[in-house]
């Protein structure tokens, strides 16, 4: 208990550590929230604007005009001068210009760039042309969409952020363990010659780290749920459980870095930050498409990436519920933590020094 108390005191006095564990994820999630608060509007359909150049000598302009009145998917305006419409096209006020030659010539479309809006205009104009050519009005096709999108793809960003917060816990683990290692710190040297159980001290340090991580993650989680109102769906317990497992993976990572790398404190922090950011990049933090591309092209990479396993676990849980995929992510995470812990124990066990 005494060890725990002192460990907490030391941990909470370390400003940088508290920043990475508590403040950085909250700053980042606030930025995410600001950037993604409008993202659902990105896929909302807005009818592309097209200007029709009126030509009195064209027999098709009146026919098209009549049809345009019934078409909601196009925002049609009428112009008499091609050059003024062209200026609007160049300044991206409109996406296309439809011009009609004399007589029964079908219209020609002028666009500024290739794009989805331009393709939509061309598609609708083609459909009108085909309907006129066939001489019949087509019946609408009944379509049933059976895909139920449970959440926006931007949720992946929040999942990667939780994963990042879990893995940043590695910094606490590294610092906690370092202060018990004789080859790293002065306090470690003192502990090495003291008549106390090393196992107790190390376990006490690791427990403190884990509890500190959980406190940080709880604050982050409450902030996301209560302040930002991010919806994690109905499997909240599963999300919390997975986060706790993620914190354990972070701790195992920190222990591993502390045990394996005999370098300066700041370099260990650099390794943790670098590794975590790279893992988060592959998990889709800088764009969810990256995760899908990695999953499709190099599936093995994200099977050993703890951030990707956590992100995929959250995704599986909130989209498909507790199932095979979720458990597979959980098992791989346990394996990741287990292997790192095993190696760390092997390296740290019975370390003795003749001199330092």
């Amino acid at each position, binding site marked *: 208990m005494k060890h725990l108390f002192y460990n907490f005191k030391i941990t909470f006095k370390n400003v940088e550590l508290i920043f990475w564990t508590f403040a950085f994820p909250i700053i*980042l999630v606030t930025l995410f929230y600001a950037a993604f608060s409008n993202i659902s509007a990105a896929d909302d359909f807005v009818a592309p604007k097209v200007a029709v150049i009126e030509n009195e000598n064209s027999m098709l302009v009146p026919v098209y005009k009549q049809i345009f009145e019934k078409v909601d998917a196009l925002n049609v305006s009428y112009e008499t001068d091609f050059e003024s419409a062209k200026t609007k096209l160049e300044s991206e006020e409109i996406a296309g210009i439809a011009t009609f030659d004399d007589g029964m010539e079908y219209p020609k479309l002028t*666009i500024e760039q290739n794009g989805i809006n331009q393709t939509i205009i061309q598609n609708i104009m083609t459909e009108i042309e085909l309907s006129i050519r066939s001489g019949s009005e087509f019946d609408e*096709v*009944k379509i049933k969409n*059976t895909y139920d999108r449970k959440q926006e793809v931007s949720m992946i960003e929040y999942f990667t952020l939780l994963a990042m917060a879990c893995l940043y816990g590695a910094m606490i683990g590294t610092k906690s363990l370092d202060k018990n290692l004789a080859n790293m710190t002065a306090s470690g040297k003192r502990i090495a010659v003291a008549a106390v159980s090393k196992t107790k001290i190390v376990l006490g340090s690791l427990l403190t780290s884990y509890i500190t991580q959980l406190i940080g993650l709880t604050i982050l989680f409450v902030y996301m749920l209560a302040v930002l109102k991010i919806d994690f769906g109905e499997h909240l317990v599963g999300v919390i459980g997975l986060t706790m497992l993620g914190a354990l993976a972070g701790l195992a990572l920190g222990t591993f870095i502390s045990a394996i790398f005999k370098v300066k404190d700041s370099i260990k922090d650099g390794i943790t930050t670098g590794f975590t950011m790279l893992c988060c990049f592959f998990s889709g933090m800088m764009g969810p498409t990256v995760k899908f591309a990695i999953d499709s092209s190099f599936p093995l990479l994200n099977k050993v990436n703890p951030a990707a396993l956590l992100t995929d676990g959250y995704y599986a849980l909130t989209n498909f519920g507790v199932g095979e995929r979720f458990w597979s992510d959980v098992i791989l995470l346990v394996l990741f933590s287990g292997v790192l812990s095993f190696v760390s124990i092997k390296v740290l066990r019975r370390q003795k020094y003749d001199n330092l």
Partner: protein
Amino acid sequence: MTTFKTFLRIVQKNLWVIIMYTVMLVLFSIVNSSTGKGQMDFTASKPSVAIVDHDNSKLSAALTEYVKKNADVQEVSEEGDAISDALYYSDIDYVIYLEKGFSDKISNGEDFELEVKSNDSYGSYLAETIVSRFIKIAKSYAPAKEAGIAIRTNNLLENETKAELNTTLDTSGLHNAEFYYDFMNYSILAGLVFAISYATIGFRRRIVKKRLNVSSTSYKKINQDLMLCNFALAAVMLLIYTVLGLFVIGPSVVFTINGLLMMLNSVILTIFAVSFAFLLTNLVEKNDALMAIINVISIGSSFLCGVFVPMQWLPDFVVFIAHALPSFYYVDNNRIFASLEKFDGEHLMPVLVNTGILIAFTVVVIILNNIVSKKKQKE
């Protein structure tokens, strides 16, 4: 030379940071690059579609052929969550299920409901117009024999509204270049600023500073040498990024006026980044704190200024805040260069304003740097 050698030794130790952010830059650009480079004619955007054909009839084959002409038809496994994953990540926009009896229902002119999975994106809207166009026309020829309907539908579908491009720019290629140079904002602000700050901070440590103060080399000379080292490192990094850009974007885009302007824009951002890194080393003494500040600034400005999320999707208040950050003007310039065709005063004015503001940010940082530096020297 001694300063340069020491600087280089510290940078070498942190080379992994630069490599990491470079890998991210290349991967991000490759993943987000669109196909269709070098196209000067109208090319319809192709939605990603998957077709699950359980009917295996002539009509379902004709529909599949028509969709293939107008969309990127992808193979996707029906097992597990493959379809849901692909729709969620927008790898596929639309999945069409052609159930047994699809052909018979059309041939007989029966009313039926087509089952699809759509992620409600623009791509899915496009896919829906393509599929429903085929079915509408096919139904209009019913009742008739399947083969006859397929032939007549295909014949009519050969007609389409002609479209031509008003521009001579390779818009797809420039769009990819825009992605690449935008992401460079993150790589430069995170990787380069970290490498420079980390190396420079080594000279700012109290004990090293004391030794430097009593050495025969003047403080000014050391500062000048350090500044030269910083710019040399920045120049090497920019050169690497430009060479990588040749592979990722392609020389045909990099060496256009627009591509070269984007490159020049990145040079101006780099000059700002170097000055900013120098200022940081004057303000911050601990490596941990340095890393924290750089992470917040690089990720924060990239999110708020439209690097990770396109600017047009950001809410108005975020765009308003972003105006206070130099990255905003850098990203906005890239956006303009991606479609700039006329290089007259009127069209270049927004670019000049953005560049002016970016330079003003740099000047302010240099002035601040001098003030802080002098203050520290007195201490």
